[in-house]
């Protein structure tokens, strides 16, 4: 394998328990988003667009669908002779098998993979955010400041700040202090869970951390505080633009609705293309009775009813006189004639029978788990 400057490692093993029924059968990064994508398309496309061509994807929880989806990495042009996508599930060693015990442990268990790739820098990403970002610029900043570590930060609102890991920085952006979910935050710069490490520096700290029984083997809780305690040169890299954690039902729904604004806060159709696996489906069809407004509709769908302020994935059917509003309808779900869906997320292959109603409310989005049949009352 030819020398790789920067290796990306995407932490995609999370269960995403706050997404409830949506992650019963699939890992969080595989959750569908935005009419045709899955959450992991965003970090993967960012890598491809940033010129990072070697990407490790660390999987653990219900990996089948995620593994199938990633395939050879072809969708992201990451099926390459040198580099490409490497799927890294936990594996058994001669001294027994271990699950990934934390974010740092997941990387630690794959140090042999990092050694094979032999990069100068390791970029750690998580598989649960929607954003477009040029990692090459972040890497350039990292090099320019001769940092040991650079952490992507995002200015969140002060009310939200206590929910995040907060970075307190000096005027140059050097991180002085890290506080995990502080009750009284001194700054509103939240860690995005995006780290660039000098490879040797990371290697040393991971090995030290691995043997500590007291450690929870987590980047935010253990590794970063230790590095700061040792006076490491840690810089923040401020990201401006759209960045959304889609870890909860409400935030996932909101992020979908964000796409429906007249001028969306971030453009899926910009030059910074989001790649995704593209099944061979025809353009969708709207019948003579169809009414579709303020919505996104994907290929293979057929709409005969009314769709307003909603996101329809591929192969969705909306029957005559059916009404879908303020909702997300995932691939191959059927909304039969006269059915009503509002403030809901209807997962893959569900059937909302003729005349049935699925009505949620803002702040209480109704979720219909994959494959459910909802009959009329």
């Amino acid at each position, binding site marked *: 394998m030819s020398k790789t400057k920067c290796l990306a490692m995407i932490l995609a093993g999370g269960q995403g328990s706050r997404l409830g029924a949506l992650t019963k059968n699939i890992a969080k990064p595989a959750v569908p988003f935005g009419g045709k994508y899955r959450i992991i398309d965003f970090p993967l496309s960012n890598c491809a667009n940033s010129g990072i061509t070697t990407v490790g994807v660390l999987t653990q929880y219900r990996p089948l669908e995620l593994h199938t989806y990633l395939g050879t990495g072809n969708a992201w042009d990451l099926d390459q002779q040198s580099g490409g996508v490497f799927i890294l599930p936990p594996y058994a060693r001669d001294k027994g098998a271990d699950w990934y015990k934390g974010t740092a442990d997941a990387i630690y268990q794959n140090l042999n993979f990092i050694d094979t790739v032999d990069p100068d820098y390791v970029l750690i990403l998580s598989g649960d955010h929607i954003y477009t970002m040029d990692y090459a610029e972040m890497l350039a900043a990292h090099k320019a400041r001769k940092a040991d570590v650079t952490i992507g930060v995002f200015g969140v609102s002060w009310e939200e700040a206590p929910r995040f890991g907060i970075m307190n920085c000096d005027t140059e952006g050097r991180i002085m202090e890290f506080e995990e979910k502080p009750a009284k935050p001194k700054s509103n710069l939240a860690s995005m869970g995006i780290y660039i490490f000098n490879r040797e520096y990371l290697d040393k700290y991971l090995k030290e951390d691995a043997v500590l029984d007291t450690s929870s083997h987590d980047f935010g809780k253990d590794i970063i505080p230790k590095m700061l305690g040792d006076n490491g040169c840690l810089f923040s890299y401020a990201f401006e633009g759209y960045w959304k954690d889609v870890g909860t039902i409400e935030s996932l729904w909101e992020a979908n609705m964000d796409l429906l604004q007249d001028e969306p806060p971030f453009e899926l159709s910009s030059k910074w293309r989001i790649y995704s696996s593209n099944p061979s*489906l*025809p353009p969708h069809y709207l019948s003579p009775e169809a009414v579709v407004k303020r919505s996104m509709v994907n290929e293979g769908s057929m709409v005969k009813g009314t769709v307003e302020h909603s996101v329809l994935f591929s192969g969705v059917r909306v029957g005559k006189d059916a009404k879908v509003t303020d909702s997300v309808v995932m691939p191959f779900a059927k909304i039969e004639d006269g059915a009503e869906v509002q403030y809901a997320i209807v997962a893959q292959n569900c059937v909302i029978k003729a005349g049935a109603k699925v009505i949620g409310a803002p702040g209480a989005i109704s979720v219909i788990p994959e494959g459910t049949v909802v009959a009329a009352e």
Partner: protein
Amino acid sequence: MNSMMGIIRLDGSSAMLKELCEHRPVASLPIAGRYRVIDFALSNMVNAGITNVGILMTEKARSILDHLRSGKDWDLARHREGMYYMPNDSVDGRAPIGNLSGLYNNLDYVQHSSGDYVLVAKADSIYNMDFNKVLEYHQSTGADITFVYQTINGSIPGTSSVLKVADSGLVKDIYKSPNVEAGSDVTMGVYLMAKDTFINLVKTAFERGGTDLLIDGIMRRMDEYTIYAYRHEGYMARINSVEAYYRASMDIRKPEVWEELFMGENVIHTQRKDAVPVQYKETAVVTDSLIANGCEIRGEVENSILFRGVKVAEGAKVKNAILMQHAVIGKDAVIENVICDKDVVVGEGKSLKGADTYPIIVSKGAAI
């Protein structure tokens, strides 16, 4: 062994397709919002388990090379076999006439391919069919050559090859007809024969000065072959004139045709693109239309087909139209009975109307 290899011919008259085929063979004419005409023949072959497809090249083939590339999107980029471009070079300094010389020049490729049968198809038809059924039929009748045909239910413009088929399926006669009436049995340009038969047929016909596979290879030597015909019962449209193209496009919009062609077990593959799902804005009113990904719609669209990345501004009205990739329809513009080729821009307030039966064609890249 029951294996077939495929050959797709790009040749064929495109004169009646006018501006639409000025720069491209009919094979790469965009259709149904995201496809090219060749996708249907090629996908049918792939879906029948054919892993070895020769593309018999023609002039103006740049768009075909750009579309098919390695064949990856049809799963034909393979270590063994896969897709193969058959060049149609000049012979002894003479430019090739017809398709026979191209086939003749590539006979060694056919010879060395592993298939026992050769399935030849033209890239000018819209259909989704199982070629394995044709092979079963071919074997059950013991025919030398099997044609695939359709009994048409309306008259079709343009020259067609008509078959006289006996109840047994035996072909009694083949002739070219400039005007075909309803009830006629018309070939779909798909022939199946054993590899040896094919090689022999091409060799003999070409070496005796022939230029056309059907006329010189088959029609002139009818008495030497036992020819049967297999009837395709599903939807089929041959794209041989602007009218046929327009009619087929409007057919595909019908839910039953759309379902049959695209949503069954055998999918039609095409070049994969990463376009965003269609964005319908507040003022959008869209009915009875096929809309491809990447479109952004603020105006009214009725009874139309929009290809990838078309933008329809607020107040614009699009009716009975086919708008190919990246057309931009300005504010309050009115478009009716129009076929816009790729990259057409219609300015604010402009109006463009064709006759009901005869759509206006706007050439690639035109600004109005």
